[in-house]
């Protein structure tokens, strides 16, 4: 990870007497995907709007690249904002939409044309650039919505629930793209209320509920708070007791037993220890047929922290 690109300190915002966001502080580094996880109404979108300069915080500050978002209009050149709902003109073509938004980010002429081509290619829409947006499927509109946030090569990409209402194929494509943005060194702030998305793409996760950031860290760090362990389940042919004994010899394995025709292994970090467990099984001469790593998930973390399941 690089240096912090986004820094939010003590953000607070109220609407009337209702506190929407209360003392939220977070930071995202270049090349990092930060997931802001929480149910609908938790304060994710309000936080994002303050980060993008669309709402002034009542208290606290936001800086991107060390520059204040509230005070410097030019900082918005560093931010790519992808709103939750598709924000495009349906009566314009994809290329016209991107061209219009690109001009607002001071792109002109050949550079603009090249950026539009690049954004369309990145979202697999190059063959539909000349078509009106109202002829697109929901998934295509979502991808174009993201393309519009990438035109000006932002250093921070803010994605507000980009996969809501899209089919699994488009969701997969969007998540693949987000991972690609990280590889390009972009900092990504990603809000979602889908646990599996946060687990799949985010390097770190912040859990927000009732406007407060109640926990933050890597998935591993959050899971560790629960005190629950990972479990590796090995299905094998042959002497399962010998296999269990071999696994117990691996450093980090806390327990291994035979149950339901398989070896159940309790470990701290299942993914990290898996290669050593497999190697131990090979040394024991017991061929492994299948492996399953069962980890406590963020859903369990959320339940633990808030006392409620994540509401859709």
């Amino acid at each position, binding site marked *: 990870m690089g240096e912090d690109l986004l820094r939010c300190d003590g953000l607070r915002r109220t609407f009337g007497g209702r506190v929407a966001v209360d003392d939220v502080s977070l930071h995202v580094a270049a090349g990092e995907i930060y997931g802001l996880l929480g149910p609908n109404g938790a304060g994710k979108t309000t936080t994002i709007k303050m980060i*993008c300069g669309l709402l002034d915080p009542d208290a606290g500050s936001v800086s991107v690249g060390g520059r204040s978002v509230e005070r410097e*209009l030019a900082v*918005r050149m560093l931010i790519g904002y992808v709103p939750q709902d598709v924000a*495009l*003109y349906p*009566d*314009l073509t994809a290329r016209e939409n991107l061209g219009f938004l690109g*001009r*607002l980010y001071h792109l002109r002429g050949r550079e603009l044309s090249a950026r539009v081509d690049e954004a369309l290619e990145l979202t697999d829409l190059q063959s539909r650039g000349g078509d009106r947006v109202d002829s697109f499927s929901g998934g295509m509109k979502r991808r174009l919505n993201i393309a519009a946030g990438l035109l000006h090569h932002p250093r921070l990409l803010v994605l507000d629930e980009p996969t809501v209402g899209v089919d699994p194929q488009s969701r997969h494509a969007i998540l693949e793209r987000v991972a690609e943005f990280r590889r390009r060194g972009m900092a990504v702030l990603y809000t979602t209320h889908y646990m599996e998305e946060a687990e799949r793409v985010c390097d770190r996760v912040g859990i927000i509920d009732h406007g407060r950031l109640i926990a933050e860290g890597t998935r591993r760090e959050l899971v560790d708070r629960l005190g629950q362990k990972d479990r590796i389940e090995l299905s094998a042919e042959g002497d399962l007791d010998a296999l269990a004994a071999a696994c117990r010899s691996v450093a980090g394995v806390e327990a291994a037993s035979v149950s339901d025709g398989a070896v159940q292994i309790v470990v701290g970090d299942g993914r990290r220890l898996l290669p050593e467990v497999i190697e131990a099984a090979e040394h024991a001469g017991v061929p492994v047929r299948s492996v399953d790593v069962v980890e406590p998930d963020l859903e369990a973390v959320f339940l633990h922290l808030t006392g409620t399941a994540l509401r859709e």
Partner: protein
Amino acid sequence: MRNVLVIAGKDLRQRLRDRSALVIGLVAPIAIAALMSAAFRGAETFHFTLGVADVDHGPLATALVDVLHQDGLAGVLTTTPLADPAAARAAVRDKKVGAALVVPQGFSAAAASGHPEALTVVTDVDNATAGSITSAIASSFVAQLDADRLSVATALAAGAPASEAARLQALAATLRIPLRTVDRPLGASELAAVSYYSPAMAIFFLLFMIAFTSRSYFVDRDQGMIERIRAAPVRPGAIVLGKALSVFVYGVVSLGVIAVVTSAAFGADWGDPLGAAVLCLALVVSVVALTTLVITLARTQRQAEGIASIVVFGLALLGGNFVFLSAAPPIMRTLALATPNGWALRGLTDLATVGGGLGTVALPVAAILGFSAVVGLVSGWLATKAVTR
């Protein structure tokens, strides 16, 4: 400023792609102006045929017929001789003439006696105007005749010899003050219906820009585009200014095209081009101000549509876009001066009738810009209030 142009350019592109906007901005005003001009053609002038049954054939009857043939009445009536009162009544009943005037036998001779004969006007209930004009001419003639008779009688009573009566009668006739009636200001030309309804309809449909643009603002907002634009390095004012600029350009082009087409195709007179252009520019400024007002007053697209409809039709009705203001009651003519479209129509009709240029439209332009300034200030105040709420 660059972002203002980008936003205005995008809005204009969308507007040009929207066929309904083209129909309302160009096709409908031209078509309706043509239809209304055709419907009201003839209403701006009145002419009828007057039947004259001269049974007297005396000098006064001849003098009356001469009056009917004078130049001043040529544009209003044409006379046709009728044999007798019965023929006059039949001609009126059969709609062959608009009205008839019967000069009874012995009318000239009786005028000099103490028992004059009466002129009879035969009128048609379906053509009251012709009857009224004929009655007015007859009354005027009789009044003049009575004045002559009174002056001769006075001279005779004062001791003039009776043998001088004929000479005194002729002398009295030469002393009449000539009278010429005109129905418009001195130096003005007649306003054709097409010259009124072409600008009236162009302005009426220009007012629809208020509804179009305020609606488009809320559609943009509901689609998240206003927020997306605000997330870019764009000052909030640039969004409003961009939309205002697109309204301005579209409005100016729309009025310009309609003026050219109605002038070339239907002979509409928009007056001095420079004066008309300045007037139209001022009017478009007022439309921009009114659009801003509607946007600041409304909270939703539906509210914007409702408020815009009230504004558009209220202004059109008060401003005289549907009826000739000159034929409207005085209260309507006064109320029209509370509207920018009313002032614009007044300025354009003045250009077409009185003539002149910038001087003719100076007052209407000042009034429209004053209206725009007041509306703009109110909009700004409402916008500030909304932000701080």
